[in-house]
């Protein structure tokens, strides 16, 4: 992914949160003293490492970062990061994070969640935190299975999936997390993969730089209960053929030699061989388009016919809830003056005995 193309670089111009000065920290500085307790071989290790590296690169003091989580394997992450952390209730991290961010907009607030936590029990909070555009970064570890409860199907499990609770196959249609996020008016929507180390890091950094709610889906392998769920695009030998590495402003190409491209056809897309057709008709990715229609179209792509999009589908600016709430308070203070408690209590129809 070409980070220079991530458009306007809406990073934190005002420096670090709470007006601090940039600090030099390393990945090690963000490792907590807690023993990491995920299954050996779990994709979560790679995501944790990416968090450590990304936090170190942000230049923000550790105390200015808060990692909030719900319940599930992914939600153990706050214990393993030496920042402030709050391991809350199943599905409720977006609600708690909203309170934290409104109380102190200077903090960098992150949410670690999973497909069950974020899209099943916490689906309501997820869509509303995105709609409100609270400046929190949501990283959803999607392994398409319930891990911590040991192997039931999740809202992203494929139809027909055999799991502990669906021995004859799941009868349910799954969610597409990116489509859900776009439908919820998210201003930043991206997808990456646990083992795509550089890509994962770059997407997390872009999420950190986004002003507003950022939604990042990470394809994450659960090697115990759903091993190989993403093998169709995760391995070196299939990655080029089966992923669409979206880059803002660039034609949407894939294949070993980037010889294939996507072209609009009706309300969908078709694959063209660019060596034959040239680049003229090939879709150019515009992550900053106000209209989310193309982003939604991209979110629908995937196997068996088409490659799976990764990278930033959408990154646009919209007023940020926590800032707006503070602006409103400041405006009212400017207009009415700071509240006078005595006057407030003694207002209305009063009489003296």
């Amino acid at each position: 992914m070409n980070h220079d193309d991530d458009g306007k670089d809406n990073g934190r111009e005002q420096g670090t949160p709470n007006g601090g000065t940039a600090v030099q920290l390393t990945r090690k500085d963000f490792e907590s003293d807690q023993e990491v307790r995920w299954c050996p071989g779990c994709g979560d290790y790679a995501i944790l490492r990416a968090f450590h590296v990304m936090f170190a690169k942000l230049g923000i003091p550790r105390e200015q970062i808060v990692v909030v989580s719900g319940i599930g394997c992914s939600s153990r992450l706050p214990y393993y990061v030496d920042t402030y952390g709050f391991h809350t209730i199943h599905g409720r991290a977006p609600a708690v994070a909203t309170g934290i961010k409104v109380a102190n907009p200077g903090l960098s607030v992150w949410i670690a969640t999973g497909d069950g936590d974020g899209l099943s029990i916490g689906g309501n909070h997820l869509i509303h935190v995105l709609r409100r555009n609270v400046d929190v970064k949501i990283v959803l570890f999607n392994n398409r299975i319930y891990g911590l409860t040991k192997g039931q199907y999740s809202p992203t499990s494929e139809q027909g999936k055999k799991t502990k609770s669906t021995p004859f196959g799941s009868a349910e249609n799954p969610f597409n997390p990116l489509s859900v996020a776009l439908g919820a008016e998210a201003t930043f929507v991206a997808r990456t993969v646990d083992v795509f180390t550089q890509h994962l890091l770059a997407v997390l950094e872009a999420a950190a730089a986004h002003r507003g709610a950022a939604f990042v889906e990470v394809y994450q392998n659960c090697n115990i209960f759903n091993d190989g769920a993403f093998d169709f695009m995760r391995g070196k030998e299939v990655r080029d053929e089966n992923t669409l590495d979206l880059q803002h402003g660039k034609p949407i190409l894939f294949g070993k030699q980037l010889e294939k491209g996507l072209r609009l056809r009706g309300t969908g897309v078709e694959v063209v061989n660019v060596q034959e057709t040239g680049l003229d008709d090939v879709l150019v990715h515009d992550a900053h388009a106000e209209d989310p229609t193309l982003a939604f179209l991209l979110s629908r792509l995937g196997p068996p016919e088409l490659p799976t999009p990764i990278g930033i589908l959408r990154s646009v600016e919209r007023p940020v809830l926590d800032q707006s709430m503070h602006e409103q308070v400041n405006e009212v203070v400017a207009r009415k003056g700071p509240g006078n408690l005595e006057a407030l209590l003694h207002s209305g129809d009063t009489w003296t005995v």
Partner: protein
Amino acid sequence: MTTKQITPKPASGPRVERLSRVVVRFAGDSGDGMQITGDRFTATAAAIGNDLSTLPDFPAEIRAPAGTLPGVSAFQIHFSSEDISTPGDEPDVLVAMNPAALKVNIRDLKPNGWLIVNADAFGPKDLEKAGYETNPLEDHSLDAYRILPVEIEKLTKEALKETKLTAKEKERCKNFFALGLMYYLYNRPLDNTVTWLGRKFKDKPAFIEANTLALKAGYTFGEATEIFQVTYEVPPAKLPPGKYRNINGNSALSLGFVAAAQQAGLPLFLGSYPITPASDVLHELSGYKNFNVFTFQAEDEIAAAGAALGASFAGSLGICTTSGPGLALKSETIGLAVMAELPLVVVDIQRAGPSTGMPTKTEQADLLQALFGRHGESPVVVLAACTPADCFWMAFEAARLAITHMVPVILLSDGYLANGSDPWLLPKVSDLPRIVPGFRTDPQGFEPYMRDPATLARPWVRPGTPGMQHRIGGLEKWDGSGNVSYDPENHEHMVHVRAEKVARIAHDIAPLQVQGPQSGDLLVLGWGSTYGAITSAVADLAAEGIVVSQTHLRHMNPLPKNLGEVLHRFRRVLVPELNSGQLALLLRGRFLVDAISYSKVQGQPFKRREIMERIRKVLES
């Protein structure tokens, strides 16, 4: 506008009888302006210096069809020259603006009470809408009352015929005619209301003029026609000196939280989801942004509590307001607050349940939910306000205990307190205690679950504080370090610590006071909003020479530390409550006291008379 004398004095006319207390109920269609009429009558009574207590009763439907029974809106005011504490059992006067209002309210009117009806609203169609087969004004069904049919609509229109208002607008002034008539009956001045009209309609002089004319027309009608054989006066009450304001429970709660946040130097964060009868607190607090108040209307009850707890974690005073069904949804978050040992105030403005129940009606049936309605051993502080004005003090107390002891607090109010109002002796800000949050910024020797030796409270460390990064959450903690622990002994220890932390708050609250004899035959023990009814029942019995003792709980957990000792000083304990005996169950379990439960679960508050009768019955048994 006229400037002539607006406080007519009864120079001649009917004799004036002096009364110590009067209950008036205005009832009409929800479009008839009964709440405003009641409010104005109340403001005038306050200005005169009466003690007073009011209760509105409005329909659950937003706009029920006009003239029907579900569309009836009423407002009751009890005003007195003495200390009173309830809106009154039965009205002495009922003003009924239409047949539906008559039908819904007549059963409460005192025998031989004044019944003033808007005779213009008793046509065949009006009667049919109210379900009357014959005209009650003609069929002698109301012979038990002193009935006065007045053509209120016609007389109002006549009084306003010179104005440029439309016919509809003129008709809508009829409530002020009725108000004027009541001012005549009780020899009240009009100036307070006229001044208010001037403020209310300052951009609409035509409405000031019209409503003032209607008000005076009502007064003059009473004076000129001498329809009353007698008029009344209720002299001022001897209230403790000071500045007063009439306030309902929800407004008092809102101000209590603003005051507490100010006295603690904290921003106030309200997470709330609209629910009857709690929504008014959200509305009111959302207007106080210049007091550093942040209001967040969440996507659901759960998120409201989650956001409030997040705000508390980040160093604000996080509160939420809800009613019974919402408290059920917040129970998991309250459990997290117990585990995370963070301040959180949850107000449950109780209504009649279970489920949607009767949302606009009052009940006290969430006591056990508040005390025990969570998974695991999950003790929380539970408080209960006892009067509308007390909602201010209990909101302040809830915030104080949550902040200084690092615990979640549930504050119980109810629909009766939320909408009822009484005079509030206004405090001076300089007399309010300061609340000192236990913020820690010193990393030296810091552990997230280290404890204050006296209160067992853990330190409050705001994210952003350098060198003190730590992780908290719902998993069991090792005492001190706060590290996740599955150690069996540690879990049991932590269960005890969390319970002990709440129990020690008993040292931080006032001991229970008993009114009347300090020991003896019968103690009447109430909690929450039954205070007014119990107090007036006990006082009225005392006036008859029947003396019993009374005490009232505002701290439900921990209970005042002398409660057990108080209970055992009496042979019998009567516990009136608007549920099936929840406090009685608790007292039996905690203190092995054979508490006599007096239960009422009708969505209505106790009447003074009901409690008097029950006390008599107990004394006779």
